[in-house]
């Protein structure tokens, strides 16, 4: 399968990439790792006249810690995050990176490209929204920083201007006593999840001081399950409060029936994933080492 023909441009710097896209006009697109874009091009769902390749720009792939935050470069591959000891310190990030599609896609796909694509079934936005995440962008008018909650505005839609790109994803390192988990349910490794739940919480003894719960693949964007959060915040974590929160998550989900399952089935998945993710997050907050991973049918 071939995409429609296009002109190929290779940017030497981020600034040059922005200038190129501005000059090439509306029918131009950035190409990062291509793991979402190339399939869209092959099916001819997207038919750009110009592609500006970002993969030859030096210094765009990095993971570093700086003043209480973790920084990920635009072209940092999922597999680099999966194997990063630094990223492992925020378990939600490791869970997410290690479970995206399969080994081959993780070796080529990028965090910046994935966020900019804003696929409703994508993993990153859902995992990162439970953390204090900001997206650093570069556009025609220079740099700006957008909170992740304002970044993804709709399915396949972000706050980015046409010629603007993501340069860095910055995640604040959670305080001591925090734990998180990201669980997705997939029919097979290479496919998008049927449903996913991300949980980030902070414990003081048995009491849940603070919590963020997000649901993926069950709406046009990742959904913050605020009622579920309210059910846990300030409460002692036990089977009853966790079950109440999971039921609230079910109510917050807004899935559609499709080839991955009926809407009702996905709501049921959300309940099960939420319970399990909250429990794993809590155990991690207590300092336990728990393997959390994507689940397969």
């Amino acid at each position, binding site marked *: 399968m*071939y995409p429609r*023909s296009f002109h190929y441009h290779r940017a030497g710097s981020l600034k040059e990439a922005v200038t190129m896209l501005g000059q090439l006009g509306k029918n131009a697109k950035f190409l990062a790792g*291509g793991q979402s874009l*190339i399939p869209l091009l092959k099916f001819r769902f997207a038919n750009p006249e110009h592609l500006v390749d970002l993969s*030859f720009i030096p210094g765009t792939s990095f993971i570093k810690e700086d003043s209480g935050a973790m920084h990920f470069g635009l072209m940092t591959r999922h597999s680099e995050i999966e194997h990063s000891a630094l990223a492992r310190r925020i378990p939600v990030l490791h869970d997410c990176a290690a479970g995206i599609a*399969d*080994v*081959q*896609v993780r*070796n080529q796909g990028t965090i910046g490209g994935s966020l900019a694509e804003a696929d409703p079934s994508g993993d990153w936005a859902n995992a990162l929204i439970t953390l204090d995440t900001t997206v650093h962008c570069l556009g025609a008018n220079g740099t700006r920083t957008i909170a992740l909650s304002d970044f993804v505005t709709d399915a396949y839609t972000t706050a980015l201007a046409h010629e603007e790109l993501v340069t860095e994803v910055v995640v604040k390192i959670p305080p001591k006593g925090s734990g998180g988990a990201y669980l997705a349910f997939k029919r097979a490794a290479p496919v998008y999840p049927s449903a996913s739940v991300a949980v980030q919480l902070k414990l003081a003894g048995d009491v849940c001081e603070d919590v963020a719960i997000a649901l993926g693949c069950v709406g046009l964007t990742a959904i913050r399950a605020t009622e579920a959060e309210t059910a846990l915040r300030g409460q002692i974590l036990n089977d009853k409060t966790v079950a109440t929160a999971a039921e609230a998550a079910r109510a917050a989900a807004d899935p559609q029936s499709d080839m991955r399952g009926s809407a009702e089935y996905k709501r049921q998945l959300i309940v099960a994933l939420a319970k399990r993710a909250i429990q794993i997050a809590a155990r991690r907050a207590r300092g336990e080492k728990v393997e959390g991973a994507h689940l397969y049918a």
Partner: protein
Amino acid sequence: MPHAALEEKKWKGPISMPETEIVEKVAINIKVNGKAYPRQVEPRLLLVEFLRETCDLTGTHVGCDTTYCGACTVLMNGLAIKSCTVFAVQADGSEITTVEGLEKDGKLDPIQRAFGDSYGLQCGYCTPGLLLSTHQLLAHNPEPSEKEIRKAIGGNTCRCTGYMNVFKAIRQAGLNMKGV
């Protein structure tokens, strides 16, 4: 059926490719199995087609062509990727290893031997991809657990064997590589 209608149904050669206004080519140089392949390619040429059509290396297979099955898996700078989902222009300057690059001096490498010895294949269509995914796994982890093996080949679909002999082959390959 009237003669004219038959005439209309007659095969008139292959359906032509869609109109392409853009014929510009990009000069790239990709090292495949240690040998440089400088080529002029259309930007939309996929890496798998670059290998099969312009380098005549047809060991890399096209399976689903939709980033699912992993038959087209090759190593790019030592890491497994799906060559149906990478443009050749993106791989410019990189080092690619295909199934043809595994044997040395006419001898199969330890992974290939193990797949043969353990009957880790039936029709063999997915095998080149499985061999290269195994290559990436064993390069860092010669004694993988079953869970690690499952994770490493999650992106490779085999429709014949049911995977049990593939697991056996991968474990055996690890031992072969350690010289046990």
